[in-house]
């Protein structure tokens, strides 16, 4: 292909967008609306998953040591190292008996604590163990219960099961919704692109009669649809980027009580997945939609 033909193809593709303004606008609008819907759902679901994950991260398993270990810092450290080495553990926090007593005083006793001269929680030094995935709590607890030097393992099976269940449900529902949205988007967008190209069947036929190769006929259509696909994908990304922070500000202002519970994802995190997926869908549909549809009309 000559360089002049290459530039001609690009120029022609761009010109076609304006020449077939109705088709271009209809396609861009369809792609943009479908991907906007997809983007909004993705942002909601990503935030929901993040909230569940944050809640999971706050759930800890607490282990208390036997009396002999409580007085042996080296043993306690060894146990801590063994626990930290487990794959399901994300973080281990050591709470000494003194720290435990201080926290207890602040939380429950207040001024009444002055009556105590010794630490009544002398044997309550512990590790608070945070998990990477709450569904792995059972396996960790089983391991901890078999460890020597451990007196007691405190955990909440109900909380872990509930969070794990919610997490699973969110994952399945989000995969389902996003899958359906993607399928509907791809169907709608391809249909629009196909109808738009079918209208130009005559144009393709004329080019073929004159002696244009399939590639020469197809290339400007592909460029045209690729650009339309990318514009259609860029519009909802722009809208989501502009609106996202504003919506979050509004939600946090309206429902201040939620601020301490909910931690929303920054737009940058959403963008990391949304931008490549949206642009990929836009470009992919433009590319394959045009190739497949033009092929149908090339047999002249």
């Amino acid at each position, binding site marked *: 292909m000559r360089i002049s033909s290459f530039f001609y193809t690009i120029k022609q593709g761009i010109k*076609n967008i304006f*020449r077939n303004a109705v088709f271009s606008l209809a396609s861009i609008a369809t792609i943009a609306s479908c991907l906007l819907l997809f983007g909004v759902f993705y942002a909601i679901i990503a935030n929901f998953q993040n909230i569940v994950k944050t809640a999971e991260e706050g759930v800890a398993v607490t282990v208390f040591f036997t009396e002999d270990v409580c007085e042996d810092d080296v043993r306690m450290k060894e146990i801590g190292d063994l626990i930290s080495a487990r794959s399901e553990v994300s973080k281990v926090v050591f709470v000494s008996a003194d720290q435990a007593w201080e926290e207890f005083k602040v939380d429950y006793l207040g001024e009444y604590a002055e009556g105590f001269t010794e630490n009544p929680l002398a044997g309550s030094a512990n590790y608070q163990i945070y998990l990477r995935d709450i569904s792995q709590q059972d396996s960790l607890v089983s391991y901890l219960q078999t460890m020597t030097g451990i007196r007691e393992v405190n955990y909440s099976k109900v909380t872990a099961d509930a969070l794990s269940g919610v997490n699973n449900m969110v994952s399945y529902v989000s995969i389902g919704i996003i899958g359906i949205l993607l399928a509907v988007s791809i169907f709608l967008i391809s249909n629009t692109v196909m109808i738009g190209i079918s209208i130009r069947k005559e144009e393709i036929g004329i*080019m073929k*009669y004159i*002696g*244009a*190769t399939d590639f020469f006929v197809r290339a400007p259509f592909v460029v045209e649809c690729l650009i339309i696909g990318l514009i259609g994908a860029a519009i909802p990304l722009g809208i989501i980027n502009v609106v996202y922070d504003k919506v979050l500000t509004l939600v946090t202002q309206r429902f201040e009580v939620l601020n301490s519970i909910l931690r929303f994802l920054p737009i940058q995190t959403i963008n990391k997945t949304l931008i490549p997926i949206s642009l990929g869908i836009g470009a992919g549909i433009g590319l394959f939609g045009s190739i497949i549809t033009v092929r149908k009309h090339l047999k002249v």
Partner: protein
Amino acid sequence: MAFGRKKKGRVIPEDELIVFENVTKTYQTGAPALNGVSLKVKKGEFVFIVGDSGSGKSTLIKLLLRELVPTEGEIYVNGVSLSKLRRRQVPKYRRNLGVVFQDFRLIKNWNVYENVAFAQRIVQTPNRLIKRNVPAILSIVGLASKYKAKPMQLSGGEQQRVAMARALINKPPILLCDEPTGNLDPKNSWEIMKLLEQINKRGTTVIVVTHNREIVNEMQKRVITMKKGVILNDEEKGGYIDED
């Protein structure tokens, strides 16, 4: 001509540009559109193909365009068997044919210049030559000043001249015209025919499918008359034969 003569098998004499050998074309339903047609067109000839609707004229043009392939028989163009052309070779073959249709077949969204230039772009003519050749051919067909106009802004005669400019810009050895005057008034029809005659005088083989009795009778060229898929008459300097 870009495509060479057949090297193996049947040898076609150099001067026989188009050869139909017992060509039959049958569609899925109905009688054969062409039934055992044999004809030869020599280089530089001007041939009228006439006949009623359903006589097989359009099928003949479609076969020459390699839009269709014969059910039986062989068609050779410049020694090349069209049945043996692979699909990817068809565009290259078509570049050796100038084609003019009754309905002009111009791309409506493109202006006159772009419609004509497209024929050069597909043969990868450099831009500087396109910029020289398109105005030149438009002057020949008398449309130099209308290069920016869209087809819909032109009269039928002008649109047909644009189609002819597009067909001729690559200097094809064969010009196929399918009812080129079918949508034109008598004045424009004659102008188009005069243009075709001039092109023929420069060495291009011209094949015109037409219903225009007056033009056929006046021009005194070779006339092939078709009826129900067969050649009824083939006459040098002939006229329009009434089939009834």
